[in-house]
């Protein structure tokens, strides 16, 4: 067993275009975004959330940026602030959105165009493997 260095392991993730890997740095930054989102697994919490989103967010140790991104359903911004997609899924599921609908909002495409891309076989990996290699 070789002992890989965690720094080089992590550094490679930044070389993938259009992707935020849920590293520890992100997990720590987004801790309360994710814990808030997870709370929406309980129907009584979903009811309180739907009744008054702003009031519900007060209980969760979130900063103004994080609150604004949640209220705006700005998922790319939420990823940058440390949100993880599986936690964030509790927010869009509560909104009645599917993974496909919510995910498309992060790509700059309309839901229809995104759906059509998927039906045609999805996004090609060519050109989006590595920023450095440009492949």
């Amino acid at each position, binding site marked *: *067993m070789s002992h890989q260095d*965690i720094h080089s*392991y*992590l550094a*490679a*993730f930044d070389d*993938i*275009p*259009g*992707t*935020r*890997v*849920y*590293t*520890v740095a992100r*997990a720590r930054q987004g*801790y309360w975004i*994710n*814990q808030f*989102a*997870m709370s*929406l*697994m*309980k*129907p009584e919490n*979903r009811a309180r959330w739907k009744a008054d989103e702003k009031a519900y967010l007060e209980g969760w140790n979130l900063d103004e940026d994080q609150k604004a991104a949640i209220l705006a359903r700005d*998922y*790319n911004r939420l*990823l940058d602030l440390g949100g*993880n*997609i*599986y*936690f964030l*899924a*509790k*927010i*869009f*599921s*509560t909104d*009645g959105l*599917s*993974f*496909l609908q919510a*995910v*498309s909002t*992060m*790509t*700059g495409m309309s839901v229809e165009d*995104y759906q059509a*891309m*998927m*039906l045609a*076989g*999805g*996004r*090609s*990996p060519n050109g*989006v*493997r*590595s920023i450095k290699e440009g492949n």
Partner: protein
Amino acid sequence: MARITAGVATSHVPAIGAAIDLGKTKEPYWQPLFAGYDWSRQWIAEEKPDVVILVYNDHASAFDMKIIPTFAIGCAESFKPADEGWGPRPVPTVQGHPDLAWHIAQSCILDEFDMTIINEMEVDHGLTVPLSLLFGQPDAWPVKVIPLAVNVVTYPPPSGNRCWLLGEAIRRAVESFPGDLKVQVWGTGGMSHQLQGPRAGLINAEWDNRFLDMMSQDSQRLRTIPHIEYLRETGSEGIEMVMWLIMRGALGADVRQLHRHYHVPASNTAVGHLVLEPVA
């Protein structure tokens, strides 16, 4: 003695569960996906395994950020479907096999795997969608299930090699269990998918199919695939495929491929499915 009689790999996309639950499996979008499981449903109905060790990942359902186990084995009598934000799936409660689960947990710890034992847990689509794909919509699941939850959400997940080694340890454990049980190991998740960011929607059918090939033809090579390769080639959530290696490691050196299916898309994801049989 108990023995591992087969391995199953399958994606566990939540939309597949929704399609089943809402009776949409015959719709044109879904029909070709489900058709690829017809053979397997017939096979497993004849095969009648007693227990499935179901390797999956929790998608922020049973575990929040307070606690992140790398390998968590469910030793409870039963496991309720989780409410992931739209109510729990209308599927039966999953019945565990505490005797075998505890036996595996103990054996693996003696074998120097640092297991986390779970006695109360809900299970999400990662576990219930594979059951629906193989068993349809019964009133009760016709098999006992031992959930094995692997962290593939917060980095780093376990290496592919570590997953393979755990599979080998699970096999040793099963074979030292007294009692005549037919045990299957299922590896779930994948294949290509990325659920986040501007690169979302990535699918790499060529890489996926090479991976499917290697499961039966060049399996030692699978252990050496680094995490970054899954991420670059198959999207950020493609990392789930490391979990297939626990299943593959449990089957021993050689396997025969009984069935194979690959379909794009299910929602954002490339669906891959294998049925493998160990060759003595």
